[in-house]
């Protein structure tokens, strides 16, 4: 028996493989349930069954795609706002930011959870097979058993300003090559866990390994904001808060003590 034709899915698969941005709109409630409109920045294919509805959803889908958001919207028969004739799920396939977490330690699983909330594609990497397991990190997108510097050799070129590398191993044997390799990438955030004493001894080893002043300035070590975090979960919040603040260029302090627009 010949496999069923799936032209929309084939196009979705092609765009995903090419990492091209697109949005897929599906009627999930109302007449035409299951109908699909595939929206790319340069045009749309498919139909939700009505031209005006297609036009409105295409416009909204491009907005959602630009914001990297997915969600449910409702429309009138011809795409009218504030009516509830059909419900349309618009799923954005923007490229998500990435977080690489080195070290499969207790703090890792909390950091993975928090990073997923923020929409990161999270990879956990540890050379120790017994710790780097999918069971321990069910929410991670990928769990890799390898040395961090070797993973970075493979994926480092894909890292950019929106991405983050968090080194949680606090073992110089793993940390130093991982940090030196991460500094070769364009990653926006490079944080390293450890006590002040660990930090000092690590810095010495990094200098022996040839880190320069610019590299030292890029390091967030010890990583995280000073919010008094103690538990793995609190520490995860402290770390991602620093990631966000670095990306937005804000100096962290209480909103109460700041002025100007909150969403600025």
């Amino acid at each position, binding site marked *: 028996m010949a496999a069923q034709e*799936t032209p*929309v899915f084939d196009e979705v*698969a092609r765009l995903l493989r090419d990492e091209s941005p697109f949005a897929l709109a599906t009627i999930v409630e109302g007449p035409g349930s299951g109908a699909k409109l595939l929206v790319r920045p340069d045009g749309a294919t498919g139909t939700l069954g009505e031209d005006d509805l297609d036009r409105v959803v295409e416009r909204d889908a491009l907005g959602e795609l630009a914001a990297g958001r*997915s969600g449910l919207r409702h429309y009138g028969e011809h795409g009218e706002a504030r009516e509830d004739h059909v419900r349309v*799920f618009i799923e954005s396939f923007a490229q998500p930011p990435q977080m690489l977490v080195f070290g499969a330690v207790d703090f890792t699983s909390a950091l993975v959870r928090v990073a997923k909330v923020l929409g990161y594609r999270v990879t956990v990497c540890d050379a120790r097979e017994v710790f780097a397991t999918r069971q321990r990190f069910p929410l991670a997108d990928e769990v890799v058993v390898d040395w961090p510097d070797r993973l970075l050799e493979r994926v480092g070129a894909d890292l950019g300003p929106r991405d983050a590398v968090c080194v949680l191993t606090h073992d110089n044997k793993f940390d130093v090559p991982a940090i030196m390799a991460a500094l070769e990438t364009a990653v926006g955030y490079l944080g390293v866990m450890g006590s002040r004493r660990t930090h000092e001894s690590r810095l010495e080893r990094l200098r022996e390994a040839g880190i320069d002043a610019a590299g030292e300035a890029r390091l967030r070590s010890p990583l995280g904001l000073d919010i008094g975090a103690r538990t793995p979960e609190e520490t995860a919040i402290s770390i991602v808060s620093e990631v966000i603040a670095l990306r937005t260029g804000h100096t962290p302090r209480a909103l109460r003590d700041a002025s100007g627009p909150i969403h600025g």
Partner: protein
Amino acid sequence: MREILGDLERWRAQGRRIALARVIDLEGSGPRLPGATMAVAEDGEVAGSVSGGCVEGAVVTEALEVLEQGDRRLVSFGYSDDEAFAVGLTCGGTIHLFIEPLDW
């Protein structure tokens, strides 16, 4: 869908019928964001997830029914719905799923 693309293409190549369950809406806290997708092949093999493992078992049952009956359906799982559903999210939120055959 990105993370399960390989499974989907392999199953398609093997001629297996597939149902897709996608998170389309969340109320309160939920482990996976809208867009999280789980695929179920006609023989019950699963790829991806829609929660942290809380409702996947029930989703398999719904997905297999969808393949059998050829319908599309909205399914909700939530703590507050524990009388209506045998399973729920322990985290207290509600997730709304759209389940359909991959026939498009």
